[in-house]
């Protein structure tokens, strides 16, 4: 049985109060294990971003337990959460969020610089990781000179440069065309995924559903079910889906 990367137990998150109350998370149970690529899917507004934010301590849950690598996020101070994210979590954003005035290599070096790695060392390591995601010849380009797919690869390189054990992505393919989106997911499976690392990808892009080891289906602030599949990268119809109850998801196989 693979090691547990993260678990959420009966997590609630409300926005606003009284008449403006929104139950963005309404009793979420979810476990993420090392070595898997978990897709969190569901319609817009169902609470995916909120779940991801709570999972990595950007947002505090209203109630419930949030545990990442055995540590209770909900019991940490802001400073501890910031430090915890720095050490353990890599981020990939829908809009890439690359700093426009930094080159690809400098952008990738940012998490290392946050770890106080000297500038030149950080750039050397950044270039190596960029080569890994197929951008060896683009390291000194500014983001504006790169295509969307290339920018997202830079973002992937940035998320993995410090070797975090959990990588979270919110809609990483939303701004990309279908083919490019699938290429990006291939990069995730081939370059980013490893036995000791878990990847959680929030998406409503059905063209990439075939790349997940498991698919968690979310509606109205709850996880309706988690499907385990053999990740092939093929389109969803070709994959045999198997519905599982959220609490009974320990014994899945994470194939690469």
């Amino acid at each position, binding site marked *: 049985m693979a090691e547990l990367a993260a678990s959420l137990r009966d997590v609630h998150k409300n926005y606003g109060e009284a008449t403006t109350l929104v139950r963005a998370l309404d009793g979420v149970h979810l476990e993420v294990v090392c070595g898997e690529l978990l897709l969190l899917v569901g319609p817009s507004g169902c609470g995916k971003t909120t779940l991801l934010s709570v999972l990595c301590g950007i947002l505090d849950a209203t109630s419930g337990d949030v545990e990442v690598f055995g540590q209770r996020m909900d019991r940490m101070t802001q400073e501890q959460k910031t430090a915890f994210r720095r050490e353990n979590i890599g981020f990939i954003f829908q809009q890439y969020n690359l700093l426009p*005035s930094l080159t690809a290599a400098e952008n990738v070096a940012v998490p290392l*610089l946050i770890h106080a790695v000297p500038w030149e060392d950080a750039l050397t390591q950044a270039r190596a990781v960029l080569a890994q995601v197929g951008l060896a010849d683009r390291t000194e380009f500014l983001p504006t000179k790169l295509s969307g797919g290339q920018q997202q690869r830079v973002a992937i390189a940035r998320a993995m440069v410090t070797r975090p054990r959990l990588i979270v992505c919110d*809609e990483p393919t939303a701004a990309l065309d279908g083919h490019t989106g699938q290429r990006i997911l291939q990069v995730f499976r081939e370059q980013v995924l490893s036995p000791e690392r878990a990847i959680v990808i929030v998406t409503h892009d059905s063209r990439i559903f075939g790349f997940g080891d498991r698919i968690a289906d979310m509606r109205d602030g709850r996880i309706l079910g988690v499907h385990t599949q053999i990740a092939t990268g093929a389109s969803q119809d070709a994959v045999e889906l198997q519905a599982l109850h959220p609490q009974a998801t320990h014994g899945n196989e994470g194939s690469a």
Partner: protein
Amino acid sequence: MMKIAIKMLMGDRAKYLTLVSSIAFVSLLFIQQGGIFCGLIGRTARPVEAVDAPIWICDPLMRSVDDAEPMQDTDLYRVRSVPGVKWAVPLIIRIVTARLANGQYQSVRLYGLDDATLYGRPAHMLSGDTRDLLENDAVIIGQAESDKLGSPKIGDSFEINDTQARVVGIAEAPRDFLSNPFVFTTYSRALSYLPPDRKTLLYILAAPKDGVPTQTVIANIEKTTGLAAYTEDGYRWHTMGYYLKNTGIPVSIGVSLAMVFVIGTGIAGQTFYAFALQNERFFGALKAMGVSGTTLTHMILLQSLLVGLIGFGIGGGLASIFGFAAGPQSKIAFAAPWELAAIALCAVLIICLLASLASIRRVLKLEPAVVFHG
């Protein structure tokens, strides 16, 4: 991370230039307005500086060097007998009206110098000799503002109080606040230029005996004669203080400085805020990646500090070009002592601090939605 902050700032060329130029503009206006203020106020003390005496003695009612509260002629002897006084000489500084050859009237600042020593005579003659003051009707005029007397040359003459004044020399003289031409002559001739039957002794200049502190002598003089005594610097400030208190200059310049400050804060603040808004998702990403609030604050402060210093450098530079162009002898009063630069720098830094506070606040309480979706 601070290098990143700098790259973030400079990378956005257009915003960066707007920020720097708005700060430069504020610095320029601030130093320029402040410089004119210091220049104007400084000019009120020029008539004192022109004399260069260790101790100034006058009637306690004298409010400034442009005032005229005469003493008794006997006060000179009383001062000379005060312990610690090495020498004491009389001096007149009065604003009187001259009548030019063409019939025009022009007020001038008349100096009546001790006949025996000519103490207080101009240090730099442009033409002529101070000793020629001993000739009949002789006066020396200051070069500055002499155009108001019709730019007379040696040998030309005009009248003061129906008495002939013949130019025997032209000296370097400062420009004073009232922009009156300076006219130097002897004490006894100055008396003939003033209305008769009046007490006329306005100042006594004195020096302390060797080894006696000036302050001690001043205290002695004030105690034994009941007159007011100042060091030269003290009397300069006495005069400047009068103008500061009794004219509209501080208020009007103060209002324009306050406007510069408010408008500058507005412009710089808005630009900086727009810059921060645009960078919000990047700061958000950095925050998600584990950059502490303290570091983010430092980054933003560094950015605004850089903008402030560079803008101040440019604005201050432009202001000093203005100052040099004006020059000390120009009609435009401009003086920028280091205190003024320091105050302007503080004002600029406060503007930058205020501008960055707003964006720091935003960045510190970033919404996850902003972080993830931009």
